[in-house]
């Protein structure tokens, strides 16, 4: 797929082709402005690709957007949420729109609130939440319907160490059940330790993709940081 801005003058994503498998945690790396967020926004239906196709879970985002959206969930890099709703109202709203049955909703919300340490604040208006708490409420909302594909843009930013750890553990658990996680990050250590495969995007083009071992084979160096720096220089 490709996407450009300013009537084609700026190529944000340039002929990118990528396949992510079930049960995989896929890390999407790249310098600032490389095209990570644009790619993710196209995947979740926030932006329309100029050319190419995106298929998730066998559904085309172009032709069957609702089926795609029902099977994915998305956490943006800067979570703008309804400040005038309480946390619980926001979660209930998402439960309704994703059609999560009441019993499952109760069980999952209680579990995730506990996991991310947000139980005490869930009854407050979101406007009183800190950045990290907003990030957490968006995460919980995104996990509510147990999505087949979990897509996150810079999810660790703003999270405290405990919540960051909980999220990483949950990602593993999520994939163990045959589901998929696709996330962008700048934290190379996280990508190195957590991801089954990694893609590196630079100036809109996918310049490397594979397991850590495969990436190491492409480069003489051992660390992801040096591979990343060498490729994106």
């Amino acid at each position, binding site marked *: 797929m490709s996407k450009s801005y*300013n009537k084609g003058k700026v190529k944000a994503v340039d002929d990118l082709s990528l396949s992510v498998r079930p049960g995989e945690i896929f890390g999407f790396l790249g310098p600032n402005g490389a095209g990570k967020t644009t790619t993710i*926004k196209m995947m*979740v*239906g*926030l*932006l*329309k690709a100029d050319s190419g196709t995106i298929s998730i879970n066998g559904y085309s985002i172009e032709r069957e*957007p*609702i*089926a795609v*959206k*029902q099977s994915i*969930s*998305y956490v*943006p890099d800067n979570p*703008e*949420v*309804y400040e*005038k*709703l309480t946390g*619980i*109202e926001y*979660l*209930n*709203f*998402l*439960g*309704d*729109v*994703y*059609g*999560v*049955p*009441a019993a499952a*909703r*109760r069980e999952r*919300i*209680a579990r995730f609130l506990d996991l991310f340490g947000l*139980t*005490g*604040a*869930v*009854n*407050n*208006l979101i*406007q*009183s939440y800190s950045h990290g708490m907003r990030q957490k409420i968006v995460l919980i909302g995104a996990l509510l319907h147990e999505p087949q594909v979990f897509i996150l843009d810079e999810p660790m930013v703003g999270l405290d160490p405990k919540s960051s750890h909980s999220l990483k553990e949950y990602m593993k658990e999520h994939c163990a059940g045959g589901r998929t996680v696709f996330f962008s990050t700048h934290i190379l250590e996280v990508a190195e330790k957590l991801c089954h495969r990694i893609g590196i995007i630079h100036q809109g083009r996918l310049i490397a993709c594979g397991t850590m071992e495969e990436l190491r084979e492409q480069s003489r160096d051992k660390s992801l940081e040096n591979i990343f720096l060498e490729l994106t220089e």
Partner: protein
Amino acid sequence: MMHMWQLIKLQLKVSLGLSALSWYRRHKDKRFFYGIGLVLLVVGSLSPMAWLYFRLIRTAYFTALMLGQPEAVLTMSLLSSSFFVLFFGSIYVLSAFYFSRDLSFLIPLPLQPRVILAAKFAVVLVNNYIIVAPLFLPALAVFGLNQGMGPLYWLAGLAVFLFLPVTPLAVGSAAILLLMRVTNFSGRRDALRLLGLMLLMVILVAFNYFVTSIPPGEEADFIQGLIAGERSLVNFLARAFPPAAFATRALSAPLPAAALNFLIFTAASLAVLPVISFLADRLFYRGLIGGEEISARRSISARELDRKLARSSSPVWAIAMREIKILIRTPIYLFNSVGILVIVPVLLLVPSLARGGLAPLLQMFTNVEQRLFLNLGAAAFIGVMALFTPGASSSFSREGKMFWLSKVIPVGPAQQIKGKILSSYLLAFLAVPYIILFTLFAVPFSLSELLMVILLGAALSFPVITLSLLADLLRPYLDWDNPQKAIKQNLNVVLGMVAGGAALYLVYLAGRLVYAGGAADPFVYLAVLVASLILGAVPYAILMKIADACYQKTGT
């Protein structure tokens, strides 16, 4: 000083959207001309009102001329401009000084408080010219043209126009700075906003009462009473607010006295600025810092959590409830969408109250012999209330930066629009209690009549709601940093009202046509019903057809 000018320039560029406009002119000329065209359309649609005001000023001028004091028309307009600036400007000052989102970016910069405040003051000042221009310029023109004034008058008039809002704004700013220093309001911005809006409502009602208490046909006598004599209202207010008197004499007195008064007026306007600067350095940060909103944590018990999660509902209902909850919890939305449903009926009743109570009005309703008119009038009331509430015409805009969520949830845009229609209906039906009160205390409706009134009211609201939603869907204003902008600076609200008003007028014409043809009452009702449904169904069908494409291209 350098920083101050730089920051003023930056703030004006941001506030007036000059940079964005210039960018659009160079890169997206279609959007640029679209924006310009819309502004012209709004100005054009307001021009009949401006013409009415101009005629009122002319009447006032000739009345004042007969009394030998034609300059009173200038004093009146200078005073009304100043009081409007003092009140509306102060609300704006409060918002700009204490609740702008860019303060968190500006405060950590190595700038003096007075520099930040000067930039904010400049923005408020420029925006206040929009208030002053329609109030003052017609009086300046009427007086100048009728007195055959020369170029110096027009130059002095321009200077007076530019300086006019400075003093009232400075007075308002000083009061706000002191208020915020001695109270703990900055942490309760919603409460403060609601208080300000309620005060505005009281002033509007009082103003309406004052205007409508003028006996019909005696407007000239009323104006005479206002301006004639030392103890008249105008002279009293001019003494209370001397800049208006100086400005009047600067524009109307013979040359040496005019020049002296002009100098006093401009010097007085400039003299208030150092005072504000002094107060800014001493009070601004003390009232501002520490006012971040931190609400008490109310933890929730497992049982309460269970109870709150026990209900699930359909996506359409969930969308409607989200709209309503956010609307009633955001004071500016609440005031404009729900408060207006309180204000409009009160404003409609005030003329009767001002002229001796409600009895004659009730008598008038009781005397309506044809039930047809009463029933249609009551239904029209519901439709007009739907027209006055900007709930639908700002529905997409109010989502602002949260619109991403509407794009990623697995609920199609068409379904989401149905939720918005539902929430708009819930708002429009807030008019129904008025109808019930009317039937209880004025003219009783039978149950079947009441049901028909509600049904016809719903039908009349249909084109109003769908046209308003369509106006907002086509060009939603999402890029706001203050919810006030989503509703108060949103042209879609005006466009929705104009389109909805036109639709109601067409329904009226359809009903009148059938009635004039001598048809029986049920056919008139039917004509109104069918015309409303057709006029509502067309924009509804367009909404459903374009929803996907519009959602796709809107926001990121």
